[in-house]
Protein backbone atom coordinates (compact mmCIF):
# COMPACT_ATOMS: atom_id res chain seq x y z
CA UNK A 1 0.00 0.00 0.00
CA UNK A 2 2.92 2.37 0.71
CA UNK A 3 4.12 2.26 -2.88
CA UNK A 4 1.06 4.11 -4.13
CA UNK A 5 1.87 7.21 -2.17
CA UNK A 6 3.92 9.81 -3.96
CA UNK A 7 3.92 12.42 -1.21
CA UNK A 8 7.21 12.43 0.61
CA UNK A 9 8.67 9.79 -1.63
CA UNK A 10 12.37 9.95 -1.07
CA UNK A 11 14.92 8.60 -3.54
CA UNK A 12 18.17 7.87 -1.72
CA UNK A 13 21.35 8.90 -3.53
CA UNK A 14 24.63 10.65 -2.81
CA UNK A 15 24.26 13.66 -5.11
CA UNK A 16 25.25 17.20 -4.17
CA UNK A 17 21.60 18.11 -3.77
CA UNK A 18 20.96 15.16 -1.44
CA UNK A 19 23.86 16.22 0.74
CA UNK A 20 22.67 19.78 1.15
CA UNK A 21 21.43 20.96 4.51
CA UNK A 22 17.61 20.72 4.57
CA UNK A 23 17.47 24.31 5.84
CA UNK A 24 19.37 25.47 2.77
CA UNK A 25 16.99 23.56 0.54
CA UNK A 26 13.94 25.00 2.25
CA UNK A 27 15.30 28.57 2.08
CA UNK A 28 16.24 27.97 -1.53
CA UNK A 29 12.68 27.01 -2.36
CA UNK A 30 11.11 29.92 -0.49
CA UNK A 31 13.32 32.32 -2.43
CA UNK A 32 12.91 30.49 -5.70
CA UNK A 33 9.13 30.69 -5.43
CA UNK A 34 9.55 34.44 -5.07
CA UNK A 35 11.93 35.05 -7.93
CA UNK A 36 9.97 32.91 -10.40
CA UNK A 37 7.55 35.83 -10.47
CA UNK A 38 10.32 38.18 -11.62
CA UNK A 39 10.54 36.49 -15.00
CA UNK A 40 8.41 38.17 -17.66
CA UNK A 41 10.09 37.65 -21.02
CA UNK A 42 11.67 34.94 -23.10
CA UNK A 43 15.23 35.52 -21.86
CA UNK A 44 14.31 35.41 -18.16
CA UNK A 45 12.16 32.29 -18.57
CA UNK A 46 14.93 30.59 -20.54
CA UNK A 47 17.35 31.46 -17.74
CA UNK A 48 15.02 30.06 -15.06
CA UNK A 49 14.43 26.93 -17.14
CA UNK A 50 18.14 26.33 -17.66
CA UNK A 51 18.74 26.86 -13.95
CA UNK A 52 16.03 24.35 -12.98
CA UNK A 53 17.42 21.71 -15.31
CA UNK A 54 20.88 22.28 -13.89
CA UNK A 55 19.55 21.46 -10.39
CA UNK A 56 17.69 18.41 -11.68
CA UNK A 57 20.91 17.27 -13.33
CA UNK A 58 22.90 17.82 -10.13
CA UNK A 59 20.36 15.89 -8.06
CA UNK A 60 20.73 12.80 -10.28
CA UNK A 61 16.97 12.31 -10.06
CA UNK A 62 15.63 10.64 -13.19
CA UNK A 63 13.40 12.93 -15.22
CA UNK A 64 10.63 10.35 -15.32
CA UNK A 65 10.13 10.65 -11.56
CA UNK A 66 9.61 14.38 -11.91
CA UNK A 67 7.25 13.92 -14.83
CA UNK A 68 5.37 11.25 -12.86
CA UNK A 69 4.93 13.79 -10.09
CA UNK A 70 3.46 16.24 -12.62
CA UNK A 71 0.47 14.10 -13.54
CA UNK A 72 -1.86 15.13 -10.71
CA UNK A 73 -1.35 18.85 -11.43
CA UNK A 74 -1.31 18.65 -15.21
CA UNK A 75 -5.03 19.36 -15.39
CA UNK A 76 -4.56 22.52 -13.36
CA UNK A 77 -1.75 23.66 -15.64
CA UNK A 78 -3.85 23.10 -18.78
CA UNK A 79 -6.79 24.87 -17.19
CA UNK A 80 -4.71 27.97 -16.43
CA UNK A 81 -3.23 27.86 -19.90
CA UNK A 82 -6.62 27.92 -21.64
CA UNK A 83 -8.00 30.46 -19.22
CA UNK A 84 -5.27 32.87 -20.30
CA UNK A 85 -5.61 31.98 -23.98
CA UNK A 86 -9.33 32.71 -24.00
CA UNK A 87 -9.59 35.65 -21.67
CA UNK A 88 -6.48 37.79 -22.17
CA UNK A 89 -7.16 40.49 -24.73
CA UNK A 90 -3.71 41.81 -25.68
CA UNK A 91 -1.72 42.12 -28.91
CA UNK A 92 -2.83 41.02 -32.38
CA UNK A 93 -5.83 38.83 -33.09
CA UNK A 94 -4.74 35.33 -34.12
CA UNK A 95 -7.99 33.51 -34.90
CA UNK A 96 -11.65 33.71 -34.16
CA UNK A 97 -14.14 30.89 -33.53
CA UNK A 98 -17.63 32.29 -33.21
CA UNK A 99 -17.67 34.38 -30.06
CA UNK A 100 -14.11 33.36 -29.02
CA UNK A 101 -11.30 35.63 -30.09
CA UNK A 102 -7.74 34.44 -29.48
CA UNK A 103 -5.07 37.10 -29.11
CA UNK A 104 -1.32 36.66 -29.49
CA UNK A 105 -0.75 38.21 -26.06
CA UNK A 106 -3.05 35.59 -24.52
CA UNK A 107 -1.13 32.67 -25.99
CA UNK A 108 2.20 34.10 -24.82
CA UNK A 109 0.85 34.78 -21.36
CA UNK A 110 -0.65 31.28 -21.21
CA UNK A 111 2.67 29.68 -22.06
CA UNK A 112 4.54 31.81 -19.53
CA UNK A 113 2.14 31.07 -16.70
CA UNK A 114 2.16 27.33 -17.44
CA UNK A 115 5.95 27.39 -17.51
CA UNK A 116 6.01 29.16 -14.17
CA UNK A 117 3.78 26.44 -12.78
CA UNK A 118 5.93 23.64 -14.16
CA UNK A 119 9.16 25.14 -12.82
CA UNK A 120 7.67 25.54 -9.35
CA UNK A 121 6.43 21.96 -9.32
CA UNK A 122 9.80 20.64 -10.51
CA UNK A 123 11.75 22.43 -7.84
CA UNK A 124 9.39 21.66 -4.96
CA UNK A 125 9.10 17.98 -5.85
CA UNK A 126 12.89 17.88 -5.99
CA UNK A 127 12.85 18.81 -2.30
CA UNK A 128 10.83 15.77 -1.29
CA UNK A 129 12.65 13.50 -3.72
CA UNK A 130 16.08 14.40 -2.36
CA UNK A 131 15.34 14.93 1.36
CA UNK A 132 14.05 12.32 3.82
CA UNK A 133 10.81 13.60 5.42
CA UNK A 134 12.39 13.60 8.87
CA UNK A 135 15.13 15.97 7.66
CA UNK A 136 12.51 18.29 6.20
CA UNK A 137 10.90 18.34 9.66
CA UNK A 138 14.26 19.06 11.31
CA UNK A 139 14.89 21.84 8.79
CA UNK A 140 11.50 23.43 9.44
CA UNK A 141 11.99 23.24 13.21
CA UNK A 142 15.36 24.91 12.94
CA UNK A 143 14.27 27.62 10.46
CA UNK A 144 11.18 28.53 12.46
CA UNK A 145 13.11 28.37 15.75
CA UNK A 146 13.13 32.16 16.22
CA UNK A 147 9.31 32.11 16.30
CA UNK A 148 9.55 30.46 19.74
CA UNK A 149 10.18 33.97 21.08
CA UNK A 150 6.66 34.96 20.14
CA UNK A 151 5.33 31.76 21.71
CA UNK A 152 4.77 29.75 18.55
CA UNK A 153 5.09 26.07 19.64
CA UNK A 154 7.67 25.25 16.97
CA UNK A 155 9.16 22.22 18.71
CA UNK A 156 5.75 20.71 19.40
CA UNK A 157 4.61 21.23 15.81
CA UNK A 158 7.78 19.60 14.48
CA UNK A 159 7.37 16.66 16.84
CA UNK A 160 3.76 16.30 15.73
CA UNK A 161 4.92 16.23 12.13
CA UNK A 162 7.55 13.58 12.75
CA UNK A 163 5.15 11.40 14.77
CA UNK A 164 2.56 11.67 12.00
CA UNK A 165 5.17 10.61 9.45
CA UNK A 166 6.14 7.67 11.63
CA UNK A 167 2.52 6.55 12.01
CA UNK A 168 1.49 6.80 8.33
CA UNK A 169 2.56 3.23 7.49
CA UNK A 170 1.13 1.88 10.77
CA UNK A 171 -2.25 3.43 10.09
CA UNK A 172 -2.21 2.31 6.45
CA UNK A 173 -1.61 -1.26 7.58
CA UNK A 174 -4.43 -0.90 10.01
CA UNK A 175 -6.78 0.47 7.33
CA UNK A 176 -5.93 -2.51 5.21
CA UNK A 177 -6.69 -4.88 8.07
CA UNK A 178 -10.01 -3.24 8.96
CA UNK A 179 -11.00 -3.19 5.31
CA UNK A 180 -10.40 -6.92 5.03
CA UNK A 181 -12.22 -7.56 8.30
CA UNK A 182 -15.24 -5.61 7.09
CA UNK A 183 -15.14 -7.29 3.69
CA UNK A 184 -15.15 -10.65 5.45
CA UNK A 185 -18.36 -9.47 7.11
CA UNK A 186 -19.87 -8.63 3.74
CA UNK A 187 -18.96 -4.96 3.32
CA UNK A 188 -18.61 -3.84 -0.29
CA UNK A 189 -16.19 -1.00 -1.00
CA UNK A 190 -15.91 -1.23 -4.75
CA UNK A 191 -19.35 -1.18 -6.32
CA UNK A 192 -22.55 0.86 -6.25
CA UNK A 193 -23.22 4.53 -6.70
CA UNK A 194 -20.91 7.22 -5.33
CA UNK A 195 -23.14 7.82 -2.33
CA UNK A 196 -23.16 4.06 -1.59
CA UNK A 197 -19.39 3.98 -1.70
CA UNK A 198 -19.05 6.98 0.57
CA UNK A 199 -21.40 5.30 3.04
CA UNK A 200 -19.34 2.11 2.81
CA UNK A 201 -16.32 4.04 4.11
CA UNK A 202 -18.01 4.83 7.43
CA UNK A 203 -17.52 1.34 8.94
CA UNK A 204 -13.88 1.71 7.90
CA UNK A 205 -13.29 5.17 9.34
CA UNK A 206 -14.91 4.70 12.72
CA UNK A 207 -12.78 1.75 13.92
CA UNK A 208 -9.75 3.51 12.45
CA UNK A 209 -10.44 6.67 14.44
CA UNK A 210 -11.10 4.74 17.64
CA UNK A 211 -7.83 2.88 17.35
CA UNK A 212 -5.89 6.00 16.37
CA UNK A 213 -7.08 7.74 19.54
CA UNK A 214 -6.17 4.70 21.61
CA UNK A 215 -2.72 4.65 20.04
CA UNK A 216 -2.29 8.35 20.70
CA UNK A 217 -3.12 7.87 24.35
CA UNK A 218 -0.73 4.97 24.79
CA UNK A 219 1.99 6.83 22.93
CA UNK A 220 1.56 9.85 25.19
CA UNK A 221 1.94 7.64 28.27
CA UNK A 222 5.01 5.95 26.79
CA UNK A 223 6.57 9.32 25.94
CA UNK A 224 6.00 10.59 29.44
CA UNK A 225 7.47 7.41 30.92
CA UNK A 226 10.56 7.99 28.79
CA UNK A 227 11.03 11.42 30.26
CA UNK A 228 9.42 13.67 27.67
CA UNK A 229 8.60 17.01 29.25
CA UNK A 230 8.42 19.40 26.33
CA UNK A 231 11.06 21.14 24.28
CA UNK A 232 12.89 22.86 27.12
CA UNK A 233 16.28 21.42 28.04
CA UNK A 234 16.04 18.89 25.27
CA UNK A 235 19.04 18.03 23.09
CA UNK A 236 18.86 16.83 19.50
CA UNK A 237 20.14 13.55 18.13
CA UNK A 238 20.02 14.72 14.55
CA UNK A 239 22.32 17.66 13.98
CA UNK A 240 22.05 19.84 10.90
CA UNK A 241 25.33 20.97 9.39
CA UNK A 242 25.52 24.05 7.21
CA UNK A 243 28.48 23.56 4.90
CA UNK A 244 30.26 25.47 2.15
CA UNK A 245 28.04 23.94 -0.52
CA UNK A 246 24.95 25.38 1.15
CA UNK A 247 26.45 28.86 1.19
CA UNK A 248 27.43 28.42 -2.45
CA UNK A 249 23.86 27.45 -3.38
CA UNK A 250 22.56 30.56 -1.66
CA UNK A 251 25.10 32.78 -3.46
CA UNK A 252 24.14 31.16 -6.72
CA UNK A 253 20.54 32.06 -6.05
CA UNK A 254 21.48 35.69 -5.33
CA UNK A 255 23.31 35.88 -8.67
CA UNK A 256 20.28 34.41 -10.42
CA UNK A 257 17.95 36.94 -8.80
CA UNK A 258 20.23 39.79 -9.85
CA UNK A 259 20.34 38.48 -13.41
CA UNK A 260 16.57 38.22 -13.51
CA UNK A 261 16.24 41.79 -12.25
CA UNK A 262 18.51 43.11 -14.98
CA UNK A 263 17.07 41.05 -17.83
CA UNK A 264 13.37 41.43 -17.10
CA UNK A 265 11.49 43.91 -19.24
Amino acid sequence: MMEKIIFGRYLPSDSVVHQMDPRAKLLFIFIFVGIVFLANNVVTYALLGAFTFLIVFLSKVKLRFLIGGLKPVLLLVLFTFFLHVFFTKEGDVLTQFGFLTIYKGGVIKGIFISLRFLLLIFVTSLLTLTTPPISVTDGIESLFGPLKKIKVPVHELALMMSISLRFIPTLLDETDKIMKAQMARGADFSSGSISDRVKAIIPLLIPLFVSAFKRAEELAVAMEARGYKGGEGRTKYRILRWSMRDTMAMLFLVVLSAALFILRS
Partner: protein
Amino acid sequence: MNTIVISIKGVSYQYPEQESLALNNVSLDVYKGEWLAIVGHNGSGKSTLAKMLNGLHYPSKGTVMIGGYALNEENVWSIREKLGMVFQNPDNQFVGTTVQDDVAFGLENNGVEHGVMQERVFASLEKVGMTAFLNQEPHHLSGGQKQRVAIAGVIALRPDIILLDEATSMLDPLGREEVMNTVRELNEKEGLTVISITHDLEEAAKADRVIVLNEGRLYTEGTPQSIFQLDRELLNLGLGVPFAVQMSQLLADAGLQLSQRHFNEEELVSELWTLNFKM
Protein backbone atom coordinates in the same frame (compact mmCIF):
# COMPACT_ATOMS: atom_id res chain seq x y z
CA MET B 1 21.61 -8.87 46.59
CA ASN B 2 19.77 -7.59 49.62
CA THR B 3 19.80 -3.87 48.99
CA ILE B 4 16.26 -2.66 48.63
CA VAL B 5 15.70 -0.59 45.48
CA ILE B 6 11.94 -0.23 45.65
CA SER B 7 9.94 -0.22 48.82
CA ILE B 8 6.16 -0.01 48.76
CA LYS B 9 4.40 0.46 52.08
CA GLY B 10 0.67 0.20 52.63
CA VAL B 11 -0.21 1.55 49.20
CA SER B 12 -3.83 1.95 48.12
CA TYR B 13 -5.11 3.46 44.92
CA GLN B 14 -8.57 4.23 43.69
CA TYR B 15 -9.38 5.32 40.15
CA PRO B 16 -11.56 8.42 40.01
CA GLU B 17 -15.25 7.55 39.64
CA GLN B 18 -14.72 3.97 40.72
CA GLU B 19 -15.93 2.48 43.96
CA SER B 20 -13.53 -0.37 44.59
CA LEU B 21 -9.85 0.09 45.25
CA ALA B 22 -7.56 -0.89 42.38
CA LEU B 23 -4.80 -1.45 44.93
CA ASN B 24 -5.61 -2.22 48.53
CA ASN B 25 -2.94 -1.84 51.21
CA VAL B 26 -0.11 -3.41 49.20
CA SER B 27 3.36 -3.61 50.74
CA LEU B 28 6.38 -5.13 49.04
CA ASP B 29 10.10 -4.68 48.53
CA VAL B 30 12.22 -5.19 45.43
CA TYR B 31 15.88 -6.10 45.85
CA LYS B 32 18.77 -4.97 43.73
CA GLY B 33 19.65 -7.28 40.85
CA GLU B 34 16.73 -9.64 41.24
CA TRP B 35 14.14 -10.66 38.68
CA LEU B 36 10.73 -10.20 40.18
CA ALA B 37 7.55 -11.31 38.44
CA ILE B 38 4.25 -9.80 39.45
CA VAL B 39 1.37 -11.95 38.26
CA GLY B 40 -2.37 -11.62 38.43
CA HIS B 41 -5.33 -11.84 36.11
CA ASN B 42 -7.02 -8.83 34.48
CA GLY B 43 -8.15 -6.32 37.06
CA SER B 44 -5.88 -7.67 39.79
CA GLY B 45 -4.19 -4.29 40.04
CA LYS B 46 -0.90 -5.28 38.44
CA SER B 47 -1.04 -2.64 35.71
CA THR B 48 -2.03 0.01 38.22
CA LEU B 49 1.01 -0.98 40.26
CA ALA B 50 3.22 -0.75 37.16
CA LYS B 51 1.95 2.73 36.35
CA MET B 52 2.53 3.79 39.93
CA LEU B 53 6.16 2.67 39.87
CA ASN B 54 6.72 5.05 36.96
CA GLY B 55 4.86 7.96 38.47
CA LEU B 56 1.97 7.76 36.04
CA HIS B 57 -0.30 7.37 39.09
CA TYR B 58 0.34 8.55 42.63
CA PRO B 59 -0.81 6.45 45.61
CA SER B 60 -3.98 7.58 47.38
CA LYS B 61 -2.54 6.15 50.59
CA GLY B 62 0.85 4.79 51.61
CA THR B 63 4.36 5.51 50.36
CA VAL B 64 6.47 4.37 47.42
CA MET B 65 10.27 4.74 47.57
CA ILE B 66 12.23 4.14 44.38
CA GLY B 67 16.02 4.23 44.30
CA GLY B 68 16.07 6.45 47.37
CA TYR B 69 13.44 8.88 46.09
CA ALA B 70 9.95 9.12 47.52
CA LEU B 71 7.40 9.08 44.72
CA ASN B 72 5.90 12.55 44.38
CA GLU B 73 5.54 15.16 41.67
CA GLU B 74 8.86 16.73 42.55
CA ASN B 75 10.91 13.55 42.20
CA VAL B 76 9.04 11.92 39.39
CA TRP B 77 11.58 12.83 36.68
CA SER B 78 14.49 11.53 38.73
CA ILE B 79 12.54 8.33 39.30
CA ARG B 80 11.90 7.94 35.59
CA GLU B 81 15.67 8.08 35.05
CA LYS B 82 16.12 5.24 37.56
CA LEU B 83 13.28 3.08 36.32
CA GLY B 84 12.62 2.46 32.65
CA MET B 85 9.43 0.94 31.39
CA VAL B 86 8.56 -1.24 28.39
CA PHE B 87 4.87 -1.33 27.49
CA GLN B 88 2.59 -3.93 25.96
CA ASN B 89 2.01 -2.66 22.43
CA PRO B 90 5.25 -2.59 20.43
CA ASP B 91 3.88 -0.04 17.96
CA ASN B 92 2.46 2.47 20.39
CA GLN B 93 5.73 3.14 22.18
CA PHE B 94 7.91 3.62 19.12
CA VAL B 95 8.33 7.39 18.85
CA GLY B 96 11.22 7.84 16.42
CA THR B 97 11.04 7.45 12.67
CA THR B 98 13.98 5.04 12.69
CA VAL B 99 15.51 2.63 15.21
CA GLN B 100 18.33 4.97 16.21
CA ASP B 101 16.01 7.96 16.55
CA ASP B 102 13.78 5.96 18.83
CA VAL B 103 16.61 4.84 21.08
CA ALA B 104 17.81 8.45 21.22
CA PHE B 105 14.38 9.77 22.21
CA GLY B 106 14.83 9.21 25.95
CA LEU B 107 18.36 10.63 25.81
CA GLU B 108 17.12 13.75 24.00
CA ASN B 109 14.48 14.22 26.68
CA ASN B 110 17.14 14.16 29.35
CA GLY B 111 19.35 16.68 27.60
CA VAL B 112 22.27 14.31 26.99
CA GLU B 113 25.05 15.80 24.86
CA HIS B 114 25.26 14.77 21.23
CA GLY B 115 28.56 12.87 21.35
CA VAL B 116 27.57 10.90 24.45
CA MET B 117 24.17 10.29 22.92
CA GLN B 118 25.62 8.63 19.83
CA GLU B 119 27.86 6.37 21.92
CA ARG B 120 25.01 5.28 24.13
CA VAL B 121 22.65 4.63 21.22
CA PHE B 122 25.19 2.30 19.63
CA ALA B 123 26.13 0.63 22.91
CA SER B 124 22.54 -0.10 23.88
CA LEU B 125 21.60 -1.37 20.44
CA GLU B 126 24.58 -3.67 20.67
CA LYS B 127 23.35 -5.06 23.99
CA VAL B 128 19.99 -6.02 22.48
CA GLY B 129 21.54 -7.23 19.22
CA MET B 130 19.88 -4.67 16.96
CA THR B 131 22.87 -2.80 15.53
CA ALA B 132 22.14 -4.10 12.04
CA PHE B 133 18.84 -2.22 12.04
CA LEU B 134 20.13 1.28 12.84
CA ASN B 135 18.27 3.09 10.09
CA GLN B 136 15.35 0.72 9.77
CA GLU B 137 11.84 2.14 9.98
CA PRO B 138 9.48 0.63 12.57
CA HIS B 139 7.05 -0.88 10.07
CA HIS B 140 9.82 -3.07 8.72
CA LEU B 141 10.50 -4.66 12.13
CA SER B 142 8.81 -7.60 13.82
CA GLY B 143 7.07 -7.21 17.18
CA GLY B 144 9.97 -8.84 19.02
CA GLN B 145 12.48 -6.55 17.31
CA LYS B 146 10.41 -3.48 18.20
CA GLN B 147 10.32 -4.56 21.84
CA ARG B 148 14.09 -5.05 21.79
CA VAL B 149 14.46 -1.51 20.45
CA ALA B 150 12.19 -0.34 23.27
CA ILE B 151 14.48 -2.12 25.74
CA ALA B 152 17.50 -0.46 24.12
CA GLY B 153 15.75 2.90 24.54
CA VAL B 154 15.33 2.15 28.23
CA ILE B 155 18.86 0.93 28.94
CA ALA B 156 20.40 3.85 27.01
CA LEU B 157 19.33 5.95 29.99
CA ARG B 158 21.28 3.64 32.33
CA PRO B 159 18.45 2.91 34.73
CA ASP B 160 18.78 0.63 37.78
CA ILE B 161 15.45 -1.05 37.18
CA ILE B 162 13.59 -2.12 34.06
CA LEU B 163 9.86 -2.68 34.30
CA LEU B 164 8.16 -4.85 31.68
CA ASP B 165 4.43 -4.21 31.66
CA GLU B 166 3.03 -7.21 29.74
CA ALA B 167 5.84 -6.53 27.28
CA THR B 168 5.60 -9.95 25.63
CA SER B 169 1.84 -10.46 25.60
CA MET B 170 1.38 -9.21 22.03
CA LEU B 171 4.27 -11.20 20.57
CA ASP B 172 4.45 -14.58 18.90
CA PRO B 173 6.37 -17.36 20.75
CA LEU B 174 9.56 -16.58 18.86
CA GLY B 175 9.42 -12.86 19.62
CA ARG B 176 8.62 -13.67 23.24
CA GLU B 177 11.73 -15.80 23.52
CA GLU B 178 13.86 -13.12 21.82
CA VAL B 179 12.74 -10.51 24.31
CA MET B 180 13.04 -12.79 27.33
CA ASN B 181 16.57 -13.82 26.38
CA THR B 182 17.57 -10.19 25.97
CA VAL B 183 16.17 -9.33 29.38
CA ARG B 184 17.82 -12.37 30.98
CA GLU B 185 21.17 -11.31 29.59
CA LEU B 186 20.80 -7.77 30.89
CA ASN B 187 19.77 -9.14 34.26
CA GLU B 188 22.73 -11.49 34.51
CA LYS B 189 25.49 -9.46 32.86
CA GLU B 190 24.59 -5.89 33.78
CA GLY B 191 22.94 -6.64 37.10
CA LEU B 192 19.81 -4.80 36.02
CA THR B 193 16.87 -5.28 38.36
CA VAL B 194 13.93 -6.66 36.37
CA ILE B 195 10.29 -6.39 37.32
CA SER B 196 8.07 -8.22 34.90
CA ILE B 197 4.36 -7.78 35.13
CA THR B 198 2.52 -10.55 33.37
CA HIS B 199 -0.35 -12.97 33.40
CA ASP B 200 1.76 -15.58 31.69
CA LEU B 201 3.04 -18.00 34.32
CA GLU B 202 5.62 -19.47 31.95
CA GLU B 203 7.24 -16.07 31.85
CA ALA B 204 6.96 -15.82 35.63
CA ALA B 205 8.67 -19.20 35.94
CA LYS B 206 11.90 -17.54 34.77
CA ALA B 207 11.90 -15.08 37.67
CA ASP B 208 13.78 -15.34 40.94
CA ARG B 209 10.70 -14.42 42.91
CA VAL B 210 6.99 -14.22 42.13
CA ILE B 211 4.34 -12.02 43.68
CA VAL B 212 0.69 -12.88 43.07
CA LEU B 213 -1.83 -10.05 43.14
CA ASN B 214 -5.55 -10.62 43.38
CA GLU B 215 -8.28 -8.00 43.53
CA GLY B 216 -5.82 -5.29 44.45
CA ARG B 217 -4.29 -7.23 47.33
CA LEU B 218 -1.02 -9.07 47.65
CA TYR B 219 -2.17 -12.69 47.58
CA THR B 220 1.09 -14.51 48.09
CA GLU B 221 4.77 -14.39 47.24
CA GLY B 222 7.59 -16.88 46.88
CA THR B 223 9.86 -18.66 44.45
CA PRO B 224 8.28 -19.87 41.20
CA GLN B 225 8.41 -23.44 42.59
CA SER B 226 6.52 -22.65 45.73
CA ILE B 227 3.96 -20.61 43.78
CA PHE B 228 3.31 -23.43 41.35
CA GLN B 229 2.68 -25.83 44.25
CA LEU B 230 -0.55 -23.90 44.69
CA ASP B 231 -1.76 -25.07 41.28
CA ARG B 232 -5.52 -25.41 41.96
CA GLU B 233 -5.55 -22.16 43.84
CA LEU B 234 -3.85 -20.40 40.94
CA LEU B 235 -6.53 -21.63 38.57
CA ASN B 236 -9.14 -20.15 40.88
CA LEU B 237 -7.33 -16.82 40.56
CA GLY B 238 -7.71 -17.02 36.81
CA LEU B 239 -4.08 -17.78 36.09
CA GLY B 240 -3.12 -20.45 33.61
CA VAL B 241 -0.67 -22.91 35.11
CA PRO B 242 2.15 -23.88 32.72
CA PHE B 243 1.79 -27.17 30.92
CA ALA B 244 4.65 -28.89 32.75
CA VAL B 245 3.11 -28.06 36.12
CA GLN B 246 -0.33 -29.30 35.08
CA MET B 247 1.26 -32.45 33.71
CA SER B 248 3.18 -33.17 36.94
CA GLN B 249 -0.05 -32.64 38.88
CA LEU B 250 -1.91 -35.14 36.70
CA LEU B 251 0.93 -37.66 36.95
CA ALA B 252 1.00 -37.30 40.70
CA ASP B 253 -2.77 -37.79 40.83
CA ALA B 254 -2.30 -40.96 38.81
CA GLY B 255 -0.05 -42.27 41.56
CA LEU B 256 3.40 -41.48 40.17
CA GLN B 257 5.93 -40.49 42.82
CA LEU B 258 7.51 -37.25 41.59
CA SER B 259 10.07 -35.37 43.64
CA GLN B 260 8.38 -32.00 42.98
CA ARG B 261 6.00 -30.12 40.70
CA HIS B 262 8.13 -29.26 37.72
CA PHE B 263 7.58 -25.93 36.06
CA ASN B 264 9.97 -26.66 33.26
CA GLU B 265 9.27 -29.25 30.60
CA GLU B 266 12.89 -30.43 30.39
CA GLU B 267 13.13 -31.11 34.09
CA LEU B 268 9.88 -33.05 34.02
CA VAL B 269 11.03 -35.14 31.10
CA SER B 270 14.40 -35.89 32.68
CA GLU B 271 12.77 -37.00 35.92
CA LEU B 272 10.26 -39.14 34.04
CA TRP B 273 12.77 -41.07 32.03
CA THR B 274 15.05 -41.68 34.98
CA LEU B 275 12.17 -42.52 37.32
CA ASN B 276 12.61 -46.27 37.26
CA PHE B 277 16.39 -46.24 37.33
CA LYS B 278 17.63 -48.06 40.38
CA MET B 279 21.19 -47.04 41.10
